């Protein structure tokens, strides 16, 4: 793929993965400005279709802004951003992208099922789709393991349950691209494992492309590919294995630290905007 022109031999290790398909998202010179701060500084990256790409970096490095740019809710974005073959923000993309914000965005004063029913009606309006909607709602409930809580008010659920309702909403329309902002934050280890299993099932069975952000480096190992971010720039892009091999480290966290140190040595006076 064009993005790996460095042609590192380590990019494709002994590989359990099939060769990368065409990218679902391609960004060139992606820049975003919030107020007088440049949050994204000319990023180039691709998201391979049907894979789980992890977006990792410390809090405040621009992960959310990058995701908001991809789903076209971020204003003042420049550069080229192609999503599923159309420029980001194209109205035709709206039914094809699922986006889950960090804070769960659901109606607290509706039950879980009523929340899903409404968002399903927005995605698939009309009487003709009634059966399809009911099936989509049931499947989304099962996907996030909330079938037993379907009739509970969203506001009465625990934080982790509410964020799974928010995730279920994003799964409703069987989106081609799923953008998840820190979906596993604050969840217990069992739930985290279950959710990561779900992400991989979505990629494998439904061909969904996933972009999952996290600031917890140990989740990196669960991704097919990684984008490591720091201060509005992409530090590195590749499989977890390739990143470890390139920096001669045993964990992605060490690789990240190594890359930060190397970058600091290479340009000790990094220009600040």
């Amino acid at each position, binding site marked *: 793929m064009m993005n790996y022109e460095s042609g590192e031999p380590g990019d494709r290790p002994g590989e359990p993965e099939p060769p990368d398909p065409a990218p679902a998202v391609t960004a060139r010179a992606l820049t975003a400005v*919030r107020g007088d701060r440049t949050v994204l500084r000319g990023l180039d990256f691709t998201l391979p279709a049907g894979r789980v790409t992890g977006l990792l970096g410390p809090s405040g490095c621009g992960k959310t802004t990058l995701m908001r740019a991809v789903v*076209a809710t971020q204003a003042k974005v420049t550069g080229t951003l192609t999503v599923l073959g159309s420029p980001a923000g194209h109205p035709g993309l709206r039914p094809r992208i699922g986006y889950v*914000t960090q*804070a769960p*965005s659901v*109606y607290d004063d509706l039950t879980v099922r*009523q929340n899903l029913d409404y968002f399903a*009606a*927005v*995605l698939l309006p009309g009487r003709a789709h009634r059966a399809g909607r009911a099936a989509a709602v049931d499947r989304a409930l099962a996907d996030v393991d909330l079938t037993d809580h379907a009739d509970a008010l969203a506001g009465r659920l625990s934080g982790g349950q509410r964020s799974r309702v928010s995730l279920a909403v994003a799964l409703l329309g069987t989106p081609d691209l799923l953008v998840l902002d820190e979906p596993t934050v604050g969840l217990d280890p069992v739930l985290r494992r279950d959710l990561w299993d779900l992400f991989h099932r979505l990629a494998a069975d439904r061909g969904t492309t996933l972009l999952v952000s996290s600031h917890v480096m140990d989740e990196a190992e669960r991704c097919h590919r990684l984008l490591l971010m720091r201060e509005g720039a992409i530090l590195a892009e590749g499989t977890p294995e390739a990143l470890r091999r390139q920096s001669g480290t045993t964990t992605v966290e060490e690789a990240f630290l190594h890359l930060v140190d190397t970058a600091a040595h290479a340009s000790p006076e990094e220009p600040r905007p």
Partner: protein
Amino acid sequence: MTPARTLATAARVLRQLRHDPRSLALMLLVPCAMLFLLRYVFDGSPGTFDTIGASLLGIFPLITMFLVTSIATLRERTSGTLERLLAMPLGKADLIAGYALAFGLVAVVQSVLATGLAVGLLGLDVVGSPWLLLLVALLDALLGTALGLFVSAFAASEFQAVQFMPAVIFPQLLLCGLFTPRENMAPALEAISNVLPMSYAVDGMNEVLRHPDVTGAFVRDALVVAGCAVLVLALGAATLRRRTT
């Protein structure tokens, strides 16, 4: 705009209200309680009750819907559900019309109760048709919904949103002719009251109070209120942005 999405939005807003019976009860019963109170405050002068009562029948829906809509839309903005909806294939008009439809329906129930109580039990003396009172009340409710939607864009918190009530509603309340006929005000104030929509709502109610038929002035008043509602709704739509910073 898709009618099915508009209706789904209206149904969702009503469902939210159903989970909040206390708010619903306050919306429906407070106007009735106020009218009841007013009737006995002006026990000795039934004429005053007629004028003020009729005016209030127009003002209640405006204030209630203003408050409810500004808080509801603000919650929609702060909870992230607005961003989520605008990232989905939902037209802005679907959302606004959905809200207007749902709260319009609540306003109809509120007005039926208040008008029924005032005319039926409290002896409010209306020369014209009570249906026309209801029509103006509905238009006022739409205006309140529109204003609430619009100002919610300028409120960063629910705390700020309720402060918009005195800022937007009270001046209109003072200048609408509820307390003293608008002709008796200082000329500058009368001029201001001429451009405030609530003045026309109250004028319209008073037309129904005094005339058995639909008068030209009533039609003008109703059209002004409806026009203002549509204008402000359009302004409100402009404050809904798919991309935000």
